[in-house]
């Protein structure tokens, strides 16, 4: 009955101390075994991380627990009792709540209305909703768990972090004792992640149990009491963060040794491929969000842009890639002034772009991967002849990308929307990097991608750099921009506060810069040298 690897106090606990016990769960889909005899023991009042790559079976396992899927084999025990959940309602009634990666909230309704939706307390014999009671109950919940959420605020106006707290409140309101969070940090800013950790701590102190799905090592190490690693649908071990290292965990997860830090040896840089001078951009509401930015990316160089989301990165990238017209300034690419070039001309000129938003921009969701493989190249001579698209050639290309970038499941005929986020991202990155570009403009290229594929994408970016291509990299993952970039620009409120050497700056210094703290005058002058491309 004991579980040697479990972390929380005193090792083995008797069965009734397990809030959730999944016993030998197997879930088969036609042609795929998503979960293969998985055991999971989650102790009451603990944070249990479920770690694994995209497609390892984490979400499937939790969907079994939440009643969305029926297990092919195995038992689900909650509080020591075998249960059969035919639908989420059953799981909720048993005290299991799930917070999905994409929130299930009605934007135009208030926090209170969202929380009570479907469980509204009634008054006047069921004729009216008892709003006072809802607000009272929510205020009680907030007090108890130390949340600060205004029940009368409209959900659409809240930040993503606050919306997530509303989702958690919703689960608590329905009486959840076990909370499943699916990739809860994927949509949060670093500060919001910290807040979330605080919330989780508060919840476990009050006796709630948290299961949290992630593919990020750091998060699991930081916040969990126990970590169960899934690989290819099998459980490969449960460990305590205190007794393991990131490297060991990564190896457990991927099944081989992984280089966590991409290593970039110096490369001879060539002439400027991309240069922008005094670029000023307004957003859709006419607010100036990029103010006079100068930058230069040379052949064989990766320029990183770090910054908290919403500081003008998106608009700057749009101005460079031709999706938005700058209000001032010029953009030069391969020696041409491309400021007025259309997006089409820039693509044809050899500019690849991994966009920020794969759902809206990078992929056409109802198209299959074959049709998505030609997005951006639909008029290029490689795939189009006399206005006709060579679909056989496109299919070959799609299959190449799928194979090379390990898109799972490897079926070109499935619609883009049926793939998981990480696999969608791999496909977009693959399509763009295999365009044979001179310049790659990549925004969050590994967002949502598991570490095995992240490593591969990093390698490909470094390959391109070695081949003398220029790369402009925007990422909110600091370790990513730091380890890949040759120079690192920090953006704050539409301006570069500094351009630094990523190898010498510490994460604390970077954090301060991202918060808008100006570097001292001496380092500033050094930095302006670097803006010009840092003579070597």
């Amino acid at each position, binding site marked *: 009955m004991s579980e040697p690897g479990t972390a929380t106090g005193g090792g083995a606990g008797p069965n009734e101390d397990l809030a959730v016990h999944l016993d030998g769960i197997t*879930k088969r*889909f*036609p*042609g*795929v075994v*998503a979960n293969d005899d998985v055991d999971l023991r989650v102790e009451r009042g603990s944070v249990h991380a479920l770690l694994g790559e*995209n*497609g*390892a*079976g*984490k*979400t*499937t396992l939790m*969907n079994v627990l939440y009643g*969305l899927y029926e297990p092919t084999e195995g038992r689900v025990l909650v509080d020591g009792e075998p249960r059969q959940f035919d*639908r*989420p309602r059953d799981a909720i009634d048993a005290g299991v709540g799930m917070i*999905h*990666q*994409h929130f*299930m909230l009605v934007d135009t309704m208030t926090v209170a209305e969202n929380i009570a939706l479907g469980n509204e307390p009634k008054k006047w014999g069921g004729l009216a909703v008892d709003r006072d009671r809802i607000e009272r109950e929510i205020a009680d919940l907030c007090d108890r768990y130390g949340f600060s959420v205004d029940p009368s605020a409209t959900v659409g106006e809240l930040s993503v972090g606050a919306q997530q707290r509303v989702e958690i409140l919703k689960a608590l309101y329905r009486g959840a004792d076990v909370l499943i969070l*699916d*990739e809860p940090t994927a949509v949060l800013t670093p500060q919001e992640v910290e807040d979330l950790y605080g919330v989780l701590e508060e919840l476990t102190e009050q006796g709630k149990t948290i299961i949290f799905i992630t*593919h990020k090592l750091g998060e699991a190490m930081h916040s969990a009491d126990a970590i169960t690693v899934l690989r290819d*649908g099998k459980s490969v071990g449960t460990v305590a963060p205190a007794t393991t290292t990131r490297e060991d965990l990564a190896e457990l997860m991927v099944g081989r040794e992984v280089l966590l830090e991409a290593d970039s040896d110096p490369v001879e840089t060539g002439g400027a491929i991309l240069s922008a001078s005094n670029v000023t951009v307004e957003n859709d509401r006419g607010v100036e969000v990029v103010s006079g930015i100068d930058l230069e990316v040379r052949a064989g160089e990766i320029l990183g842009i770090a910054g908290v989301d919403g500081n003008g990165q998106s608009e700057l990238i749009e101005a460079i890639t031709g*999706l938005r017209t700058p209000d001032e300034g010029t953009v030069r690419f391969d020696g041409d002034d491309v400021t007025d070039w*259309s*997006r*089409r001309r820039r*693509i044809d000129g050899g500019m690849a*772009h991994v*966009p920020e*938003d794969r759902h*809206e*921009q*990078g*992929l*056409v*969701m*109802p*198209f299959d991967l074959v*049709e998505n493989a*030609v*997005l*951006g190249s*639909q008029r290029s001579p490689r795939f189009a002849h006399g*206005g*006709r*698209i060579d*679909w056989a050639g496109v299919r070959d290309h799609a299959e190449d990308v799928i194979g090379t970038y390990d898109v*799972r*499941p490897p*079926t070109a005929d*499935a*619609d883009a*929307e*049926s*793939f*998981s986020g*990480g696999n969608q991202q791999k496909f977009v990155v693959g399509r763009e990097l295999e365009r044979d570009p001179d310049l790659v403009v990549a925004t969050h290229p590994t967002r949502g991608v598991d570490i095995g594929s992240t490593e591969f994408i990093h390698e490909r970016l470094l390959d391109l750099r070695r081949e003398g291509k220029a790369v402009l990299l925007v990422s909110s993952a600091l370790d990513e921009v730091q380890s890949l970039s040759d120079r690192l620009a920090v953006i704050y409120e539409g301006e570069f506060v500094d351009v630094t050497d990523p190898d010498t700056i510490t994460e604390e210094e970077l954090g301060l810069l991202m918060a808008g703290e100006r570097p001292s005058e001496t380092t500033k002058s050094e930095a302006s040298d670097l803006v010009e491309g840092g003579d070597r």
Partner: protein
Amino acid sequence: MRDDLERLLERLIHASVAERVAISVAALFAAILVGGVLVFVSGGFASCRAGLDLAGVTFCYNPIQVYYELFLGSLGHPLEGDWSPMNYSLATTLRQTTLLIFAGLSVAVAFRAGLFNIGTQGQLVIGGLLTAVTVLFAASYVPGGFVGTVLLIPIGVLAGAVGGGLYGAIPGALKAYAGANEVITTIMLNFIAAGVASTLLSWRFQDPDSANPQTRAIPEYAEIPNVPVVGFSGRMDFSLLALGFAVALMIGIAWLLARTSFGYELRTSGIQPKAAAYGGVDEKRMTVASMTLSGALGGIAGAFWVLMEHGRWLENVPALGFDGIAVSILAGNNPLGVGAAAFLFGVLSSGSNAINTATDVPPELVGVLSGLIILFVAMPEFFRMMGRRYADVGGPERTRSTGGEADD
């Protein structure tokens, strides 16, 4: 209960083509069943000399006879003696089918580009008038007979396409460069088209020998000819050549959308404008281009209405453009489906005439029966469209389970 509904919806969204056809056929039968009861019961309130007496009430209408006339009457009663395929009823059915294929394609192309073109009617009016005027004008410069036919018909169709295309480009440009909603502008332009056409008619083109508001008749050799031997008689205002052209155009549009760069860009713009912009599609030009193409197809509908049906332009233009919207929706905006949907509309329109001649059922009730059929057959497609949208906003808390898609 709610879960079951969601499961049904999910099932419907992912239905295969064969299943969708089966659903449509089943819906047709359901509509006949409901309509049949309605006709039968209505008969109890009508007065007649002979009918079915039940419990002291005389039921005047026989639903079986009504549907027999609706479906077989529209084909000219093929089960009765001395039936010839070249009969007047079938010609009416196919004439309507031909014109509605053009109108339906016009609406479908715009829909696929994400635009709701309610202006097919106006484009048809303008295109038809331009066809008639151009042919009348050109006829004085070209010889008659076979040469005239070969020259004037393409000129007429082209004139219709150009007229409709330019008239469709207006709302396209208004949307692209001024942000005007195309639903509003196309509706307004329908009124403008009718007014302008009527003004032009009285200014210049009115047939002096007629009291009806219409142009002079185009020469007979400029009307779309019938195929010798297997063709319909000239008095039936229908030509198999025209139907053949409509079907060819339908296949051409399907090919354009599926196989070409332009079609790919058009569909991408319709589904996800941001992805289209990312992929290098000039959104403004695409809006104008797709509205122009849509308008040109509407104009061609007008050209065939003139060249095949009347041999002249009349101010009283039937509402083919509006029926085109229903045809397109019924076809799920799929060009190849437009043919089948247009045929159903042709059958309903010709069959209604047959009911009116053969039975005492009032035309209003026949309209209800047609409406029921359209409603029932269109509803599953409508639910699919709405269901897709519902699934997109994350309605059902259900991760999609498409085979291998197993995780996160």
